[in-house]
């Protein structure tokens, strides 16, 4: 096991990167270190089947020549000079090809990043022994309940440093704790996931016990009747819906292409007044970090404020296209073009407990989790997926019979327009394919949520 050390020793790091960024043959050079030292205790079938101790580092160099940019990345500091040379050569080749027509690429200017609490000692203490003990206890508790458990408990140390030739120099070292569990008892299942900079915030033992109890209660599931239902979405289901807001037009890329909500309906009310969602790097929940991969300080970006369409998240390129300043959301996903993303999306909590949300429903469905959700129609932000795990009928204000997973196809915006109750407790989950990405949401109550295939009348 590692000693939970930073992926790259911080002492002298910024100076070393600044020296490499002072390349004589480029107009500007930006160097970004993304590092992660992660330890993961993954368990299933009565054993820890995949204990993993993974250290990854990437030094990505972006060189700019006459407004044309190119990147070269390497995995180690020793390869940095070569990466600078490669990025510079590629940028110059793009500039030569443009035959004197300048490009628009720039690097960030120095600015102060927001202070965010990133280090928690309790996460540092969540070591292999603690995780193996927790995994063993979880598997035994599930077995005692007549079932089984599969899950993963992990801790990581995330490191990001950005230096450029314009004088930007940021460095952050952030702890991260992750807990996730699927408990199965006969046909009853329940799922839990949460992440936080602090391991203590996961409330691991209580979360495990609650999840197993829900699996026990989930036995004897019946089908969800096709049709439209009042639903209470648990925090995980609600968070998954929020990840589709970017597809609806809160990305600078779409806004620049004049597609989606920000381009077409900025300032208009498209959701319930109870719905306020922002990308917020200053939040004390989720996975905040104060600056992005281009070294731009992040600021809180209001996506929906009391249901009214706000701004799109941007990087340097899309901000330039929109004539604004970058909001600090540069990102490069694997096998995709660089696109700004909301990396710490947070929905404001309400004042109701989940039980109070349920109490307000005469007949409906409680949905713990969605699965395999995909965009079907960008204009209406309609998605499809299935519900799964700890889902129950709501009858006369309380959870009654467990229900099986069911196919749904519904508009995220339509649902957010019907929200009349917001929970006070929030949970976070990772966002797929986003480096250090998280979404945090409370439970939501809404109406007219459509399960089953579309009917002819709805065409």
């Amino acid at each position, binding site marked *: 096991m590692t000693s939970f050390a930073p992926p790259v020793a911080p002492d002298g790091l910024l100076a070393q990167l600044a020296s490499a960024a002072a390349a004589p043959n480029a107009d500007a050079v930006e160097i970004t270190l993304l590092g992660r030292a992660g330890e993961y205790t993954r368990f299933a079938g009565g054993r820890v089947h995949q204990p993993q101790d993974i250290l990854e580092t990437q030094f990505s160099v972006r060189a700019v020549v006459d407004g044309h940019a190119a990147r070269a990345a390497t995995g180690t500091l020793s390869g940095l000079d070569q990466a600078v040379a490669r990025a510079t050569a590629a940028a110059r080749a793009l500039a030569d090809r443009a035959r004197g027509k300048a490009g628009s690429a720039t690097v960030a200017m120095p600015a102060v990043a927001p202070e965010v609490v990133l280090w928690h000692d309790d996460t540092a203490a969540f070591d292999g022994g603690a995780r193996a003990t927790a995994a063993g206890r979880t598997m035994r508790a599930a077995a005692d309940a007549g079932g089984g458990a599969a899950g993963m408990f992990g801790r990581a140390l995330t490191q990001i440093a950005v230096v450029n030739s314009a004088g930007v120099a940021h460095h952050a070292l952030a702890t991260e704790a992750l807990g996730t569990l699927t408990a199965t008892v006969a046909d009853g299942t329940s799922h839990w996931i949460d992440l936080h900079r602090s391991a203590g915030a996961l409330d691991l033992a209580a979360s495990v016990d609650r999840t197993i109890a829900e699996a026990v209660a989930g036995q004897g599931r019946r089908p969800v009747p096709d049709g439209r239902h009042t639903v209470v979405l648990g925090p995980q289901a609600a968070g998954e819906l929020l990840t589709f807001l970017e597809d609806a037009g809160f990305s600078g890329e779409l806004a620049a292409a004049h597609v989606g909500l920000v381009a077409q309906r900025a300032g208009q009310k498209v959701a319930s007044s109870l719905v306020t969602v922002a990308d917020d790097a200053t939040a004390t929940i989720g996975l905040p970090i104060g600056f992005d991969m281009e070294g731009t300080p992040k600021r809180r970006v209001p996506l929906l404020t009391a249901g009214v369409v706000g701004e799109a998240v941007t990087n340097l390129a899309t901000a330039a296209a929109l004539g604004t300043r970058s909001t600090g959301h540069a990102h490069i996903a694997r096998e995709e073009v660089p696109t700004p993303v909301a990396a710490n999306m947070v929905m404001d909590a309400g004042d109701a407990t989940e039980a109070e949300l349920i109490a307000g429903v005469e007949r409906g469905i409680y949905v713990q989790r969605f699965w*395999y959700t995909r965009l079907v129609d960008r204009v209406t932000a309609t998605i499809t997926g299935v519900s799964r795990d700890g889902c129950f009928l709501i009858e006369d204000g309380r959870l009654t019979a467990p229900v099986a997973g069911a196919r749904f196809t519904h508009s995220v915006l339509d649902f957010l327009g019907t929200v009349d109750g917001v929970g006070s407790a929030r949970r976070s989950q990772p966002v797929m394919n986003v480096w250090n990405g998280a979404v945090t949401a409370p439970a939501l109550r809404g109406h007219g949520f459509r399960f089953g295939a579309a009917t002819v009348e709805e065409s």
Partner: protein
Amino acid sequence: MSSHDWGALSDDAAARAILDSALDTVDGRVEYADARLIECEELRSYAQLGADPDERIEQNIGIGVRVLVDGQWGFAARPLAAHADAATAARSALASAVALAGSGRRVSLPPREAVSGRYETEAGQDPFTVDTATRHDLLAAWLGAASAPAEVAAAQAGVNAKRQHRHFASTEGSRQHQHLLETGAMLMVTAAGHGDVQRRSYPNSFHGNTAAAGWEYLAGLAMRENAARVGEEAVALLTAPLAPRGHADVVIGAQQVSLQIHESAGHALELDRILGDEANYAGTSFITAGDVGSLRYGSDAVTIASDPTVPGTRGSFAFDDEGTPARRAALIDRGIVRNTLSTRDSAARSGLALTGAARSDGWAYLPVCFSTHVYLEPGDGGSLDELLDRMGDGYYIDDNRSWSIDNQRLNFQFGTEVAYEVRGGRRGRLLKNFSYGGVTPQFWGSVEAVAGPEEFRAFGYPCGKGEPKQWGFLSHGASPMLVRDLRIGVA
């Protein structure tokens, strides 16, 4: 100069010395250990409408060491900055396994003989020798053709290439050296207008198409001609009639069939899912270990095989990532489940056959069950036109637009970018927003015919699995197929 003469690990003997130092570190203290030393370099060039070109090349080198101690696995991975990092990774892997001693069910691997060898992707022109201007001139031409119609709001075109030195050693004595190369291209067009947004893609709707080949692969894609076509189709979709709801006969094009194979056959047949190892993340399967050899999964027209020995695909290799030699395995034979996609661990625990599907995303992640080159065998349905003629009235659909399937890989709903009305075997109107749904064995049981080998195409895919999530790179191939009485218009 060979396409494989690059980087720090092109020399097999030098790589073997580093691997040996990792295994020597744990010698005598493990039941089994293996080490994977990998150097990877990936080039991506993109052009977007209204934006500057994007160009990036990423290189990494590292080692992943897996050990088995007292029936418990341990794994650690480190970037390789110095020779000593190999021993550091091995010590960390050993420590993680030792910490679990006596903590749960033990696994033991059946011993096997050492298997050593070398494999290289056959390639014509090395894509890494193509200069920046040539790449971007091509992309600009594709983008220009695709965005000719005024209603095209966004478009992006890209080319990609990846080269890898993948070296493997085990305490059983295996020493394997694979030098891989792949090349690909993508195009995505978004049209907006008339209150709608529609997209078209080519040559694959999911991150483009990538093959184990050199730059010559692009010539066969006819990118410029197809860019013009999909640009026009994206705009035509804005005003096309909505696809209907109900039940209908459908001929599904090769790209959409490949996605259907991926989601409902490939994933459903991963043995780690079947055994519950992925229950918390990727999901499980409706297929059980006891179903192998007897479960009717589809009609007699359906034979699906795993065969990484087929050259030229993104799932082609000579050894998987735990050293098992590649071979063809029939997964579904004339509709009956015959094999799974398995690893040594999962095969040992289940008693099922080892099919060599242990794959990992580079050096940093554990090998898990991923598809290889998994494909639908061509049938006797003849050409696409003959298949449409056989169908008579119905729809011809292709190119995936949305995909969703439950965690057991049973209940699915897919949408396609395009659909054409077919009457009397002839293609008619273009329709938009086509969707269909079903239940996996019933769906494959409704396959009446599969087109012949002349219509077969292979598609390279990325795929996500594991905790932490890793990517698998694989291939699915198919010819168009005729499905009777499909439920359509479900979205």
